[in-house]
């Protein structure tokens, strides 16, 4: 039997890898995948606790998260394509045009 803390540890590692990926990487796709990783870390955590307490409420939220992540993926990918078309690059550091400041 794998202990609860092991599940929690894995999901924390997944989440942290996701956070580091978002902060450290410049490629938009990698950032996107890192976000997915964070989501997965959280959902794993939720599912673990659901099993632990014999309660299915968290399963519902997990399914919801997966559905929303799918919808988000659709929008995110199209936004990335538009950004790529306008800048010919996937580097997030040059996607600064949406700010109101003068450094766009």
């Amino acid at each position, binding site marked *: 039997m794998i202990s609860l803390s092991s599940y929690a540890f894995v999901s924390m590692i997944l989440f942290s890898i996701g*956070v580091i990926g*978002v*902060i*450290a*990487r*410049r490629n938009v796709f990698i*950032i996107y995948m890192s976000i997915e990783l964070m989501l997965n870390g959280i959902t794993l955590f939720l599912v673990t606790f659901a099993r632990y307490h014999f309660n299915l409420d968290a399963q519902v939220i997990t399914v919801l998260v997966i559905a929303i992540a799918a919808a988000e993926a659709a929008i995110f990918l199209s936004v990335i394509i538009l950004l790529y078309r306008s800048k010919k690059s996937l580097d*997030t*550091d040059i*996607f*600064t*045009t*949406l*700010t109101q*400041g003068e*450094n*766009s």
Partner: protein
Amino acid sequence: MNTPLLVWIILAPLIGAIVNAGFYFYHIKKESISDKVFSIIGTITPLIAFLITLCLFLQMREEGVVFTQTLFTWLSIGNLNIEMKLLGDNLAIFMSMFVTFVGWLIHIYAIGYMKGDNGFGKFFAYFNLFLASMLILVLADNPIILFIGWEGVGVCSYLLIAFYYSDKENVIAGNKAFIANRVGDFGFLLGVVTLFFAIGADSLSFSTIEANINNASTELLMLAGFLLFVGAMGKSAQIPLYVWLPDAMAGPTPISALIHAATMVTAGVYMVARFHFLYSGIEDIGTFIAYIGAFSALLAAIIATRQQDIKKILAYSTMSQLGYMFIGVGLGFYSSGLFHVFTHAFFKAMLFMGAGGIIIALHHEQNIFKIAQHRAQLPIIHFTFLVGVIAIAGIPPFSGFFSKDAILAAAFQDGEYLIWGIGMFTAFLTAFYMFRLYFIVFIAPSKHVAQYVYTSKTITIPLLILSIGAIGAGFLNFPAIFGGSAFVDTWLSQLNSQKIHLAHSTEYILMAASILVAVAGIVVAYKKYAKFDIYNPENEEGIIANKFYVDEFYDKVFVQTSKKVSTFIDKVVDDKIIDGFIMTVCNEFVSFGKKVATIQNANVRFYAAFMLVGMSCIFVYLYISLGL
């Protein structure tokens, strides 16, 4: 007696000004309007004002009533109640009679003078406004309304002197007139305020002031009288605020005629006469006014003897004649002073208009020696100019003699022999410099004489009408010792605190003396200038030709000093102290803001990291504070 007509004396030229201004805007923006339209509106409206005044005058003479018209309550503060009210008493109607009449003739003259000018419509709009302002001043029932007109003529004189605004010199002259007048106006305003506190009444109308004048302390009244007179010094160009008057010649000649004959410069004399109850109550201030007048008359006459610009000579002669008027009103002989205003309006308007005719004929040449070198045949102008010169020199029976002599006799009777002496000497100088002008311009031998020069009828007809006035106006106040009725004296008798009651023999001697000095002046001028070599003009050096360096003195003392003070305030107080403090505070805020702004660099990854740090902080805080 209440009459609705009074306001129309003012409204007629005012409406003319507004309509002309409107048409002029249309003229420059859309399509051009013929000069005829402007000139018809511009000349009919003063005529209407004159006709209304004439009707009121006739009624007044018939029934002996005083006209008033209350328009509305203007100010009502606490107990103080200032009404927009017009007063048409003997003095006001007398003034507005010749202001409108002479003003009307000058308007007609201006049609000919300004012909073909680009700003024709604008000129007539200003001109009507000038007349309307003067009429507000004359018909005002309280000093506050008087002040509206007082400022109005100041503004209009500025607009008109600087009429050819593309020329820098004209604009400077306009500014000078305006600023010199502002100095006076400030005095006037302070005077009104002093008067208000001195009498402590709940209304400021002239009748209220007169009724409550005994409540006030003599010192305050004296101060008020002096301050009001400072205003008159500015408007009527007396020492020390006269310097704007000769420079005001920069404007077109009709303006000079209007300013000098009918409107602006007479305002000061009128104002003193309006406050006759104040000035005759305090003898000292009246004497002071008379002395200022006498010295102004003398100074201006001395300067005039060496000027070469035809209009400047006339300007200085105006200042000199205004000095006489102030002698008259200062000594309490208001009717004599105002009678001189009246006669002066005719001959000075005529002289200016004659000078304008010559200037036009000679393509804007104003130096008398150059005018003489290219003499034009202008018989009507020659005739009227001669009439004007004789009138101002004081040869009977021309009008100038009677009014000037009345003032001199008054000074003699009052025992002010110094003023009388100055007046006599000035009369000599007046005859001398006016005939110097006449002999050089019309008589001295010249080689180039143009046979025929066109002059417009609108120029010559007003001149002829005015020449009748210049000759005959004196008979309106024909002295009683010649069996005259002294109409003006009777008409304005309620103003006078004094009456001439010299022995007849003394009066005859005084008259003979003043005729004698006038003739002496003419003879000296004849000897010196009738055969003067105009190709070898007088040099322009010397203290008199340079107007005693008063302008330079004012420039050094007032202008340069205030410039230095202003520069000091600008460079040190403003730039260093005030700006230094304020800008330091501002710059601190700005630089702090800039530091904050560097965070907002629109970098997604940076934002994410920042969010993480923030969330971590919150979690740590929650962890510690909740003890989880």
